[in-house]
């Protein structure tokens, strides 16, 4: 190993380790969770085009733009020195059989599908972005995360046959770097003009047809209609479509209620959703809205988060300890941080009713409800789109 190669190997290994630490998050500050997935200029550009908004602001746009600038000057420097996924796929290089199992490069095709579909409002295939893929590893404990998460072991396995097949033949971000390189960009574009045309002819119809298809696709999977998902506070209207499944929000949630959805229609496949069996969306917490690299969750101020209504709780009276069993309960009211449970006196027993003007859908009631005879008696139903509460307590 030459001196430069040795240095490079060391740097890459350190960056890979750091990236995995950031992805897993845990007690680290929330913004660290955002570093890796937000470094991708492909995500920044495609999402901004698709959503017609510069969601990232100035601060979080600078690093990916710096990466893009680096590519303009130095081509694939990022891939060779910095990319954690590239490092991972480079590890089996020495053991690789060096066989060509994927003879043609598809990276240009994937790239142009993403770009053209984004122009028409749908950042299709953007979950293939390598930095979102790395970040996804932070949600390894979620079973449904392995549907998009399988990409990593699969590509690692392929690397044993064809060295770094992902990086050279498939990665859309790598292709963006090739195109951006001032020295070789033109030539690369010219070389791949057929894939450009094919990408456009797949991406544009896909973006136009997908929204009409997606309603029937749930049935196409042969499942009954899945429960509508409660989404993290700040979720954009097209949350399911704009999310790249990087799971930064899943890893950063301190109460562990942002989970990976299993089932549902194709557009909602493995998307993050809120489930309240293990915790609640805490009144003072605003972490998930700070980490999303795609704008699928809009950044909220703490004040905005506090008045954001992500859903409304409804009571199943026949399961309720107070309404049906005439027990002194009111645990829903006890745990509601927003005083959104009204007390209705039935004789001496207080019974709960939800005030829809105050309820945020935080799930404190659903989480705490002690009813067991017929299951829980209070559930949060999502609001789509999310709103700002009308009432003040």
């Amino acid at each position: 190993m030459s001196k430069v190669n040795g240095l490079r190997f060391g740097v890459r290994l350190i960056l890979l380790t750091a990236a995995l630490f950031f992805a897993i998050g845990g007690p680290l500050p929330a913004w660290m969770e955002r570093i890796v997935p937000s470094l991708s200029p492909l995500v920044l550009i495609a999402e901004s085009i698709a959503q017609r908004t510069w969601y990232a602001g100035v601060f979080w746009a600078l690093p990916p733009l710096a990466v893009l600038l680096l590519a303009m000057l130095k081509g694939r420097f990022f891939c060779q020195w910095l990319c954690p996924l590239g490092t991972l796929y480079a590890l089996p290089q020495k053991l690789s059989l060096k066989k060509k199992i994927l003879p043609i490069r598809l990276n240009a095709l994937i790239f142009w599908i993403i770009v053209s579909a984004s122009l028409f409002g749908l950042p299709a295939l953007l979950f293939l972005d390598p930095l979102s893929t790395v970040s996804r590893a932070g949600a390894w404990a979620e079973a449904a995360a392995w549907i998009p998460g399988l990409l990593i072991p699969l590509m690692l396995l392929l690397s044993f046959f064809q060295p770094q097949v992902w990086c050279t033949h498939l990665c859309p971000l790598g292709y963006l770097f090739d195109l951006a390189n001032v020295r070789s960009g033109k030539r690369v574009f010219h070389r791949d003009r057929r894939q450009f045309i094919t990408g456009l002819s797949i991406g544009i119809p896909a973006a136009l047809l997908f929204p009409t298809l997606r309603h029937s696709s749930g049935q196409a999977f042969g499942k009954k209609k899945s429960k509508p998902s409660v989404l993290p506070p700040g979720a954009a209207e097209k949350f399911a479509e704009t999310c790249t499944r990087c799971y930064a929000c899943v890893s950063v949630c301190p109460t562990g209620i942002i989970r990976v959805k299993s089932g549902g229609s194709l557009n909602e496949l493995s998307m993050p959703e809120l489930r309240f069996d293990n915790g609640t969306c805490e009144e003072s917490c605003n972490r998930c809205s700070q980490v999303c690299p795609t704008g699928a969750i809009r950044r909220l101020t703490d004040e905005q988060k506090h008045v954001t209504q992500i859903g409304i709780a409804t009571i199943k009276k026949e399961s309720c300890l107070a309404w049906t069993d005439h027990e002194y309960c009111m645990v829903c009211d006890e745990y509601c941080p927003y005083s959104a449970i009204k007390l209705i006196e039935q004789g001496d027993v207080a019974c709960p009713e939800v005030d829809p003007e105050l309820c945020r859908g935080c799930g404190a009631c659903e989480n705490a409800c002690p009813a067991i005879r017929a299951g829980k008696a209070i559930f949060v139903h999502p609001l789509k789109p999310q709103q700002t509460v009308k009432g003040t307590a």
Partner: protein
Amino acid sequence: MQKLSRREFVKVGAAGSVALVAAPSVKAAEKPKTEVWVFKGADNRALMEKCMKTIFANGGFGPNAKTVALKVNAGWERTPEQAANTHPELVDVFLEKALASGVSVVIPEHPCHRAEKSFPASGIQQVADKHNVKMIDLKTNKNSFKEIAIPEGKTLKKEQVAREFLDADAVVNMPVAKHHSGGKLTICMKNWMGAIEGRKLWHVKGLHQCIADFSSFMKPTWAIVDATRCMTSKGPQGPSPDMIYPQQVILSKDQVAADTVAARLFHDDPLEVVNYLAIARDMGIGETDVGNMNIHNIQI
């Protein structure tokens, strides 16, 4: 004790029987009244300092007590002003004086919100840290719980209790008094729901009976009620628009008596409103009749 001769025994016994029959009030008079101290004043620290003096003037934490388990309320991510948790100034003085007396103190608490949020928000984490006292988060330390039997319990026959309370030489119950939608009021007796594991089930089994049942088992060495500021609606979490400021600390060895006296800040006849107090009276767990209490009103 001097031995009585048979003759003397008969004499005394006969005289006693006559007295008992003749004057039924004698029996009540023989039973000592329950001591309750009510400290009133604007300065929280001064209130608590007087309260601690009273504790040490009345036996402290018991002879040879080395360890004290303190049950505060630090369950909600709410500020001290919002009155959902025990006031940290009171806890601060308690720890200062208790530690100075030579005992060690732990503060186990099963919070409603995550401890990472509720302990610091309550301000109690900070005073505990200041005195090097450990707060134990019973939400995450599940193996703290140990099953105990409740022999006098009507509905609640057994419960999982944090072993810190079982192992300590003395237990002090130090809640804030506040409104509660299910329990009507939560003061000392209901505060034990933060010392056990299975509180969710209490609502299913019958909340008020379970509260009374558990209090028949768990009797503190001292009950100290924070009634410096109280929510009279939207409890136990608040924030409440209906605050009262009695500026009181209520102290007793009998948590039922302390609850009764504190409850009178909220209701003229608390036993009519707060079912678990009436149940406690019927089960004879503690004193609910203020006529049988020696209430020392101490202005500070």
